[in-house]
């Protein structure tokens, strides 16, 4: 049973790991293969700061909220394990700021210690009248992806540096199930007008005195179009760009200026921070995540495809819940193909 995972970002690698963990022992003939044209540190997941935080508004999508929760709870359980540091996983507290009252987010009971900001705390952020404080998690892609890759390699998963142009290509090669975790480029494999780039740009600085994340919100200009500061283990990420429909992965001087000025206004001490890098990436944005099975007739073969893409700016936040859901879909495929008598039990 050959399974091809297309894409080696956080979605592809975690889906592969989930399937491997749940089904390898039940199905010794299982062969997992990861195909991607970009591997860490060159994926979209590597550019993200790595903060676990869904959007302030859940877009009415309860399923996504549940996947977010599953991911947070899973990561929280890993926090005290020896692997945490290697995974790039650690606790972090911080601020969400608003210029007007905002309804409590869907994730207020998922994170730790969620509360409104006190008037004295708001003095730190002139121009903002409301906000939240909570403790969440960081999962840095630059560490997490290599960690996932090592686990997968140890378990015999094969990696291929290859740009897959069509599902047919892998199916004709004899692959039984395809996991489409191709993020932004999924449209190449199958057109999807709902999938659009949400272009982001970030500046990386050295500001080790910043110990909190600060995410501002401008309900008029939309998600991520307002400055944010996210400290990581090696550098601090400054951002605040979200351009729907912009495919450019080139750094823009205009966006640089906007990020720099707005973040320095938020945290004056940043004026003294040393800039160590800049990056642009495309959030694979979609009105909702596409996580579903599809049987595709390709020539005289029926190919089973599991789509798992369109995670926008919350891929890291939602990844494990989606990986588990993809694994469940895989389980049903195995059942149908009579490869499994029963699905894996509740321990999973």
């Amino acid at each position, binding site marked *: 049973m050959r399974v091809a995972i297309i894409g080696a970002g956080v979605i592809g690698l975690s889906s592969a790991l989930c399937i491997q963990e749940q089904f390898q022992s039940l199905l010794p003939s299982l062969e997992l293969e990861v195909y991607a044209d970009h591997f860490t540190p060159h994926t979209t997941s590597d550019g993200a700061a790595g903060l676990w935080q869904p959007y302030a508004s859940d877009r009415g999508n309860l399923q996504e909220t549940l996947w977010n929760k599953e991911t947070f709870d899973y990561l929280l359980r890993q*926090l*005290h*394990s*020896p692997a*945490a*540091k*290697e995974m*790039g996983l*650690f*606790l*972090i*507290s911080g601020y969400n700021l608003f210029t007007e009252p905002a309804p409590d987010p869907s994730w207020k009971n998922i994170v*730790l*210690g969620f*509360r409104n*900001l*006190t008037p*004295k*705390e708001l*003095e*730190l952020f002139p121009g903002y009248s409301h906000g939240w*404080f909570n*403790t969440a998690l*960081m999962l840095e892609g630059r560490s997490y992806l290599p960690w996932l890759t090592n686990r997968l390699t140890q378990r015999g998963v094969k990696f291929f540096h290859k740009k897959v142009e069509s599902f047919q290509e892998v199916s004709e090669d004899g692959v039984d199930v395809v996991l489409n975790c191709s993020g932004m480029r999924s449209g190449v494999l199958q057109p999807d007008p709902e999938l659009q780039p949400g272009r982001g740009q970030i500046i990386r600085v050295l*500001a*080790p*005195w*910043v*110990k*909190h994340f600060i995410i501002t919100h401008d309900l008029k200009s939309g998600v991520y179009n307002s400055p944010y500061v996210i*400290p990581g*283990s*090696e550098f601090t990420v400054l951002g605040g760009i979200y351009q729907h429909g912009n495919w450019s992965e080139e750094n823009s001087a205009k966006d640089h200026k906007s990020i720099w000025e707005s973040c320095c206004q938020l945290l*004056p*001490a940043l*004026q*003294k*921070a040393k800039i160590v890098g800049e990056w642009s990436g495309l959030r694979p944005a979609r009105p909702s995540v596409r996580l579903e099975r599809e049987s595709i007739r390709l020539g005289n073969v029926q190919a089973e495809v599991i789509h798992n893409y369109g995670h926008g700016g919350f891929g890291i936040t939602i990844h494990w819940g989606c990986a588990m859901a993809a694994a469940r879909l895989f389980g049903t495929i195995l059942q149908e193909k009579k490869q499994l008598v029963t699905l894996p039990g509740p321990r999973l």
Partner: protein
Amino acid sequence: MASPKVAVVGAGVIGLSTALCITETCPSCSVTVLSDQFSPNTTSDVAAGMLIPHIYPDTPIHRQKQWFQETFTYLFAISNSVKASEAGIHLVSGWQIFKSTPKEELPFWSDIVLGFRPMSEAELQKFPQHRFGQAFTTLKCDCPPYLLWLEKRLKATGTQMYTRKVADLWELHSEYDIVVNCTGMGAHQLVGDKQLFPVRGQVLKVHAPWVTQFIRDGDGLTYIYPGIHRVTLGGTREKGSWNLSPNAGTTRDIFDRCCSLEPSLQGAQDIEVKVGLRPSRQCVRVQREVLSKGGVKLPVVHNYGHGAGGFSVHRGTAKEAAHLVEECISALQSSSSRAKL
């Protein structure tokens, strides 16, 4: 008295902040800092510099609260400004945890720090051996940066600083009009204060940049304080010990205790061990005195004995000491005008 000459003895956080306050309240004063040690070799450099007050049994609580409030307000403004990184001042959030619920669930400073509240059940799950906790955000003064920044501000006012071991305050009476004694543990010898005693603290300063939250056990013995470049792991409170040499067994013990609260510290690198003697006293001595010898008078202002709470109250006690210096100046001026009559 046109330009009173003031000597401040001691260049830790107390000496430097007191000297700075004096230049602020008395711009005509000529201030000189004398110390046998400067940063990075002061007791203050060993401390983590966390703004979490230590309770002095014999100082009235309202006075301790005022000192803390003044210090917090002063540093809060710096943390929020462009000077924050140079001054080494930053906000840090975290938890104080207790194995058994403390008698006083609301310490006097709970309304001064930010966002103080009891920890939730979910947060306490991180600490299975602890049953109660408090979450809040406070400030940290990283040393050497904070001390170096105070030194820089002092130099800008024209304050001179000299490395000099003062063995007797009377050494200074011919060159200076007023002496300010900020010698911390040195006051034991310098002014013979037997109420002052060392409480030895050993700490580890490690590289662990993924630790963003502070954790403090309410017993005050185990703590994890993330600073700008290093995390301070502590500690010990050995009353009466004058030993400044690191102890290897203690290092192991501190590391183990901290790892049990924060397992990821197992991966910490570059462990540096430091020892400091907290200059402890039942109450902080912020007091005026006029020494007298053979008809000569020497006004002295004492500002020492801050024990484990130096950083938490430094600005408040510095301001009080600066006011006492003003009183000394007034007294000198009125006695010199009386002398003229």
